[in-house]
């Protein structure tokens, strides 16, 4: 049997596909982070906690109210978005005049509190969330067995990422947003309500995290730790892609997912640090990130 670096090609395809699936989560989460950083200049450390919140809202909807996966896919991001709007209005908006560091510290504190609360209430082992009936089972692709649900995750995240990119880079609303980032005073002078736009942008960014949380619920346990396990990697993705670059965040998300998948085959022990090694290298060669512009 022919092999590539000692691995049968079929096994390699399987691993690449798995990498792509993990990359979908990286892309969705780093997209939200990039949107928030691009528009608000806030490094949102609460992103992981809000992703976890999305999964928990879905789980609570199912176990307490009896609302299933598909409605949760809509309701949980809305709920998380609403929490985000509240946070922005009440706390974050007071910090824009100060250094980046304050926003970072505030969101980090919020993350610790949300996680601590859920850990206290539900423990760390997590709650099971079943795969929706419509997506149970899987396809035998010849080189691997692909659960339908994982296929759905890749498709859903691709659509959401592309739509977001299009909305920000190619529509009138996106143009306002980008203009408001460059010069908020001037845009306000044209009669556009910039503070409200900023609030809604933050709400949208964290709603994306909530959506990723619902998508993740059936794959991982719904656990208070799920966010903090992922968020550091996602930050590395954003740094590698270039802070604030939307396309960069998405492409890097998928790319690093693939690369991590390959590492799991060739040198599994290093699979949880490979992303950081790449981050270090990228920062040395291109400090603004692969897709970032030097300011």
């Amino acid at each position, binding site marked *: 049997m022919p092999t590539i670096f000692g691995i049968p090609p079929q*096994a390699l395809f399987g691993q690449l596909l*798995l990498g792509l699936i993990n990359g979908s989560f990286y892309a969705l989460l780093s997209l939200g982070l990039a949107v928030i950083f691009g528009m608000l200049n806030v490094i949102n450390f609460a992103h992981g906690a809000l992703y976890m919140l999305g999964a928990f809202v879905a789980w609570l909807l199912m176990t307490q109210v009896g609302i299933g996966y598909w409605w949760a896919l809509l309701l949980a991001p809305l709920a998380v978005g609403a929490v985000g709007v509240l946070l922005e209005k009440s706390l974050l908006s007071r910090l824009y005049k100060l250094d980046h560091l304050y926003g970072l510290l505030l969101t980090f504190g919020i993350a610790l509190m949300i996680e601590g609360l859920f850990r206290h209430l539900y423990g760390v*082992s*997590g709650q099971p969330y079943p795969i929706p009936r419509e997506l149970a089972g899987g396809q035998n692709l010849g080189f691997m067995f692909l659960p339908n*649900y994982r296929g759905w995750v890749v498709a859903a995240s691709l659509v959401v990422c592309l739509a977001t990119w299009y909305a920000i880079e190619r529509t009138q609303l996106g143009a306002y947003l980008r203009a408001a980032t460059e010069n908020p005073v001037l845009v306000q002078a044209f009669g556009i309500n910039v503070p409200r736009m900023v609030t809604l942008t933050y709400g949208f960014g964290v709603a994306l995290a909530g959506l990723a949380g619902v998508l993740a619920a059936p*794959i991982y*346990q719904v656990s208070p*730790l799920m966010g903090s396990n992922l968020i550091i990697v996602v930050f590395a993705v954003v740094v590698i892609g270039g802070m604030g670059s939307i396309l960069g965040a998405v492409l890097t998300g998928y790319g690093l997912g693939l690369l991590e998948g390959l590492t799991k085959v060739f040198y599994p*022990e290093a699979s949880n640090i490979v992303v950081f090694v790449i981050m270090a290298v990228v920062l040395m060669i291109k400090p603004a990130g692969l897709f970032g512009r030097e300011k």
Partner: protein
Amino acid sequence: MVKQLLVGAALAALSVSTAQAQQGKVSADVVKIGVLNDRSGLYADLGGEGSAVAARMAVEEMGGKVLGKPIEVIAADHQNKPDIGSNLARQWIDRDNVDVIVDVPNSGVALAVQEVTREKKKIFLMEGPATSSLTGSACSPTGFHWAYDTRALAVGTGRAMVQEGGKNWFFITADYAFGHQLEADTSAEIKKAGGTIKGAVRAPLNTADFSSFLLQAQSSGAQVIGLANAGGDTITSIKQASEFGLTQSGQQKLAGLLIFLSDVHALGLQVAQDLVLTTGFYWDMDDEKRAWSKKFMEKTGKMPTMVQAGSYSAVRHYLKAVEAAGTDDGPTVAAKMKEMPVNDMFAKNGKILANGRMVHDMYLARVKKPSESKGPWDYYQIIRTIPGDEAFATVAESGCKIASQ
């Protein structure tokens, strides 16, 4: 009459002075128990606050006092980091007068703490950690390994799976001291039983996605996929193995080498059903265990894992030994603990070997199907009792040097 009074007074004085002498042997006038474990990470549910609750239950049973001195229980989070764990242990012993350290899941941290307690001659009661080297190459005169170890898991689950026809194995191993030892011990048992090892992959601790490793295990063609990991990692791997249809095909079987009751609870019976596992304790085995576990449940809202039940048993035995020895001096109490049999709801006629291994019966269990379970926490069917002498290594086999001297 005067003479009698004098004799009486002298006797009374004597008894007072001996009592004082005995009380004087409790360091800092308090017996302090430090529960050191993961209280926030992936192992927090199998030990965590539950182990501290169990220790307090043992203290309550003693009336809160031993040798006339109060007993105090404190707890801290080692965050699964050996440096934090050993620093806390040092601080506790040097500054806070802690006499005994309890639990310490995560073999990596336990190995580090064992060095501290050995140096300070303090008692170390291990329920959480698994690696058999704690009573082997890394044994200590004051270290006690209580609830289970990697060798017992290998003998239990490993041997049972081979006997059922699972001849060749592939391991998904947690990449640190515990996983390596569990893989090594299980491999040895499998080979002894006539099986073979097809390969292994080392997964970093706290991995979010095991599908890649599961796929490698699948393509190896091995009959049994051995999960040499624990806690959150085991939960994720079992859940994702079911998602990828690894076991539904019937060609491959999953062997969770270390599964706690809290893991099964988190997975749900639908996913966990039919898993074969080895445990040192299950709440629903006899009246004594049920009664104790019910009390534990009232305090925590959960049934105890073998780690938590073991913490109760070990602390109780320790306090009995302090009482019998008349002191809380580490080496003296350690010698007393090894003399006394362990008899409580956790273990019947348990004995402690010279290397610190507490030998008691282990149980091979099968996770019930949802249809067989009568309600919450009714999860295991006990298939076989593994006698303690079969489950655990002898002192000679363990390779512990201090014990053979």
